[in-house]
C-alpha cells in the first residue's frame, strides 16, 4: 500500500502543504507579536515547536491510518486553525493557552477518529445508537442543572469546571445517522403515488422524517434560542434528503417549512425580530443592539485591501470578536487579501469534500461525505454572511477559526471522517487495480 504511487504523491503533497501552512502560521504569529509590542514573543520557539509538532503528528497519523486520503483537507484545516489561533492570541491573550489546548485535543480527536473508524462502513451499524446520542447531545443543554444559558442562548452544558457545546458534535453524529437512514429509505422516499398538476409528490407518510427534522429545528430555536444551529440543522437534512432521493420537490417542501418556521419564529420571538431589525438597519440601533455588527463593518472598512497589519488594528472594539467576529478582525488586520484567502480556504475545503463525495462509490459514504461537507460549507457561510451583513447575524462559530473547544474538536472529527471516506475509496481503487493486475497476469 505504501508503495502505491498515488498514495505516495498524496502524502508528499500533504506534507509540503503542511510545511507551507506552518510557515504562514509562524510568520503571522511573529508579525502579530511585533505589531502589538515591537518585540519578539518570549515563548516563540516552544510555541512554533508545538504548532509544527501538531501538524506533523496529524500528518503522520494520516500517513499511518489513512494513507490514501485526500491531501488538501488537513493542511487547509491546519492553516485555518493556525490563523484562528494567531487571532485568538492577538485578541484575547488570556484565551490563547486554552485555544492551544483545544487544538491539541482537536488533533487528538482527529487521530482517535481515524484510529477508531478504520473503515467508514463500521459506523453505519451504530446508526440508531448514534441517532439517540445525537438527539441526546442536541437536547442536553435543556436539562436543568447542567444546562447553561450564555448570551441568551441555551447551548452550553457544564459538568463541574468543564463546559462545552454538545450541539457542535451532535451535528456530525446526526449527519452520520441521516446518511445511513436516507441510504436505506431513499428508494421509498423517492417513490411517489401522487401526481398533482404533473408534479411529483411523495406519499404523506414519507413526510414523517422531514416533519421530525423540522420539529427538532424548531425545538432548537424555541428552547435553545439558537437560530444559526437551527437553520444549519434543517438545511443539512433537506440537502441530504434531496441529494439521496434526487427529488427536487423536497427542496420545495423544505423551503416551505422553513418559511413557516421563519414566520413562526419572527412572530413569537422578540430576539428574532431584533436580529432581523438589526440586519435591515443597524444604524438605527447603533449604540446598543446594532453596535456589534456596525463595529464589525467598520473593522472591514478599516482594513481595506491590504489591512492594518497584524496587531496594528483595533478589532478589540468589536464585542465577542474572538468567537463570533474573528472574521471581522481578520478583515481589519489582513484586509481584503486576508478575508479572500480565508474564503478561498473554505471554498477549497468544500470543493475537496464534494470531490470525495463524488468519487465515493458506496451510497452511504457518498451521502455522508456530502453531509459533512455541507456542514462545513453552510456553517461557514451562515456566520461569514452574518458578520458581513449579507444575512441576519446568528451566533455560530466559524469552523477551525473561532475560539472554542467544542467547535474545534467537532470539526477535527468531521475532517477525520472525510479523510476516512477518501481513504476508503483510494483503498478500493487500489484493490480493484490490484485485482485487474492479477487477472491480466492470469491471462498471460
Amino acid at each position, binding site marked *: 500500500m505504501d508503495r502505491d504511487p498515488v498514495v505516495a504523491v498524496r502524502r508528499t503533497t500533504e506534507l509540503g502543504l503542511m510545511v507551507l501552512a506552518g510557515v504562514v502560521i509562524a510568520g503571522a504569529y511573529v508579525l502579530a507579536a511585533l505589531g502589538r509590542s515591537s518585540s519578539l514573543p518570549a515563548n516563540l520557539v516552544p510555541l512554533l515547536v508545538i504548532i509544527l509538532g501538531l501538524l506533523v503528528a496529524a500528518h503522520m497519523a494520516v500517513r499511518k491510518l489513512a494513507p490514501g486520503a485526500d491531501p488538501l483537507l488537513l493542511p487547509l484545516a491546519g492553516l485555518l486553525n493556525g490563523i484562528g489561533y494567531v487571532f485568538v492570541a492577538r485578541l484575547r491573550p488570556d484565551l490563547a493557552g486554552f485555544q492551544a489546548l483545544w487544538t491539541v485535543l482537536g488533533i487528538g480527536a482527529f487521530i482517535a477518529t481515524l484510529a477508531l473508524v478504520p473503515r467508514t462502513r463500521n459506523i453505519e451499524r451504530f446508526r440508531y445508537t448514534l441517532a439517540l446520542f445525537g438527539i441526546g447531545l442536541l437536547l442536553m443543554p435543556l436539562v436543568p442543572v447542567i444546562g447553561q444559558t450564555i448570551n441568551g442562548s441555551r447551548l452550553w452544558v457544564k459538568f463541574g469546571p468543564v463546559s462545552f457545546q454538545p450541539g457542535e458534535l451532535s451535528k456530525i453524529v446526526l449527519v452520520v445517522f441521516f446518511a445511513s437512514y436516507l441510504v436505506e429509505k431513499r428508494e421509498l422516499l423517492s417513490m411517489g403515488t401522487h401526481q398533482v398538476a404533473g408534479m411529483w409528490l411523495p406519499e404523506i407518510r414519507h413526510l414523517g422524517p422531514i416533519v421530525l427534522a423540522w420539529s427538532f429545528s424548531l425545538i432548537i430555536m424555541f428552547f435553545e434560542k439558537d437560530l444559526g444551529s437551527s437553520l444549519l440543522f434543517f438545511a443539512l437534512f433537506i440537502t441530504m434528503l434531496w*441529494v439521496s432521493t434526487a427529488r427536487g420537490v423536497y427542496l420545495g417542501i423544505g423551503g416551505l417549512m422553513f418559511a413557516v418556521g421563519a414566520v413562526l419564529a419572527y412572530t413569537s420571538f422578540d430576539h428574532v425580530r431584533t436580529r432581523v431589525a438589526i440586519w435591515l438597519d443597524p444604524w438605527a440601533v447603533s449604540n446598543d443592539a446594532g453596535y456589534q455588527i456596525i463595529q464589525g463593518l467598520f473593522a*472591514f472598512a478599516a482594513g481595506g485591501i491590504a489591512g492594518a497589519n497584524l496587531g496594528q488594528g*483595533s478589532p478589540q*472594539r468589536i464585542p465577542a470578536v474572538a468567537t463570533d467576529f474573528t472574521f471581522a478582525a481578520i478583515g481589519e488586520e489582513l484586509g481584503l487579501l486576508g478575508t479572500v484567502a480565508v*474564503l478561498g480556504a473554505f*471554498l477549497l475545503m468544500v470543493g475537496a469534500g464534494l470531490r470525495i463525495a463524488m468519487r465515493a462509490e458506496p451510497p452511504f459514504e457518498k451521502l455522508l461525505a456530502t453531509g459533512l461537507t455541507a456542514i462545513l460549507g453552510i456553517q461557514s457561510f451562515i456566520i461569514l454572511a452574518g458578520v458581513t451583513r449579507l444575512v441576519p447575524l446568528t451566533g455560530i462559530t466559524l469552523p477551525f477559526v473561532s475560539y472554542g473547544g467544542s467547535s474545534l474538536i467537532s470539526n477535527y472529527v468531521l475532517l477525520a471522517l472525510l479523510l476516512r471516506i477518501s481513504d476508503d475509496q483510494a483503498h478500493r481503487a487500489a484493490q480493484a487495480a490490484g485485482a485487474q493486475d492479477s487477472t491480466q497476469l492470469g491471462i498471460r
Partner: protein
Amino acid sequence: MNSQIRTLGIVLMVLFSALFVQLNNLQIFSAGRLNDHPINTRTVVRDFTEPRGTIQTKDGVVIAESVEVDDDFERLRRYPEGELFAHITGYFSFTFGNEGVERTYNDALTGRDRKVTLDRLGDILLEKDKTANVTLTVSKSLQQIATDGLAGRKGSVVAIDPRSGAILALADYPSYDPNTLASHNQDEVRQAWAALNADEGRPLLPRTYRERYFPGSSFKVVTAAVALATGVASLSQPVYPTLTELVLPQSSEPLRNFGGSSCGGPLPEILRVSCNTAFAQMGMDIGAQRMAAGTNQFGFNKVPPIDLPFGAESAFPDPSAFVRNIPALAKSAIGQQDVAATPLQMALVAAGIANNGVIMVPHVMAEVRDSRAELIEQYQPKPWVEAVPPEVAHAVRDMMIGVVAAGSGANAQIPGVAVAGKTGTAQTGLGTSHTWFISFAPAEAPRVAVAVMLENQPSANEFTGGALAAPIARDVMVAALAAP
C-alpha cells in the same frame, strides 16, 4: 446522486461568490463611506494612541502637545494656552472628534500625510517618531492683544498679512478651554460638552470665520470699489445731493442717515462720513446685476479657502432678489438687509484693497516640520480672488485714509503711520448694533489688515464702530507693525 452533489457545489460556490462580492463592497467600495461615518470612532482611537506632533505659534509658543499618560490611550492632548487659541487649534477629543487645526492638519500631526511618510520611508525599520509639528502664522503676543482688546465683549478680531494671506491673529470672545474636551474621562468630557453647548454665548463657535453678521457701513468699501470699477462713480462725479433721508422707490419708509445727520458730496466725502443716503443711491445706480457680481468678486457667496474646517460663506443676495424690491438693493449697498459677512471676510475685503485688489488665500499654517525639525512643507501664498483692478484699489485706499485721518475712523490713527480704515455700525433690528472697523496699515505699503467686530452693542452715538472697534484695531496694528 452525483448531479445533486454537483448542484450543491454550484450553490455553495454562488453563496461564497456573494460573500466575495460583499467583502469587496465593504473593504473597497463602501470603505471610504464607512471610515468617514460620524459614529466611527475607530480612526480617532487610532489617532489617539498614536504619537501626535505639536502645534506652535510663530513666536514659538506651544499651544497643543501630547503628553504621555498612564492609561489606555497612552497620550493625552494638552492645550497650555487654554482659551486663547481654542478656535484655532480646535480640540482633539475621543468623544467628539476633532476641530480646527487638529482637524485640518490631522494627517501631518499623526505623520500620515503622504509628504511625511514618503520622506520617512527609510526610517520605518528604525522605529523613528514619524509625527510632524505644525507652526502657525499667528503669534501669541498679537493674539493676546487682540483678545485683550475685546475685553470680555462678544466679538471677533482678525488680523491678516495682506501680502500673503497669513492670519496673524484670530481672536474671538467667548472661547472655551479645549483641555476639557480632550480629557480621557468621558463623563467629564460629556458634561463639559453639554455645558458649552448650553451656554448662550456659544463659546464653541469660532465667530471669526463661522458666524455671519450685518457688515453695516464697513460694506461701503465694497460698494465704493464696485462703483469705481463699473464707472458708476469717479472720485469727483457724481456729487450726491445732501440729504437727511432718502425716500426709496416702492416704499413709503425713508432711509435715514446715522443719527439723523445730513450729508452728500462726491465719493471720497460720502465714504469719509459714511453717508447712507448717498451710498443707497449709488447702489441703485450700480444696479442689482453689477452690484451682486462686484460683491462676489470680493469672495462673497464663497467659503474662503482658509485651512480651518467648516468655514461660512458670506452672503450677498442673488440679483433676482432685487427685481421687485429696489429698496432691498439700496439697503444692501450700505451693508444691511440681506448682506451678511464673517469677520474673516471683512478682513479679507480690507486685505484685498491693501494688496492692490488681490485677496490672497487666508491661512494659519506657516510650515510643517518633522520631529527632527526638517522642513516638510512651507505654506506657499497664492491669490484667492482678484477683487478689483489695482487702480480702483488705490483709489479706495486713498479714500479710506481719509476716513481715519479726518472721518469716522479717527480713533485708529497711529502717529507717524498712514492708516486706511472704515467704520461700521450695523443695526440688528433688535435695538442693538454690530460695530465694525476694518483697516490696514501702513497705507502705502500695507503689512497688516484688521477687521474688528463687536456684537450687539447699544444703539447710541457713543457705541459706534469708530468709538468701540477702531481703538482695538489700532492696538493690533501697532503691535503687528512693531513685530519683526
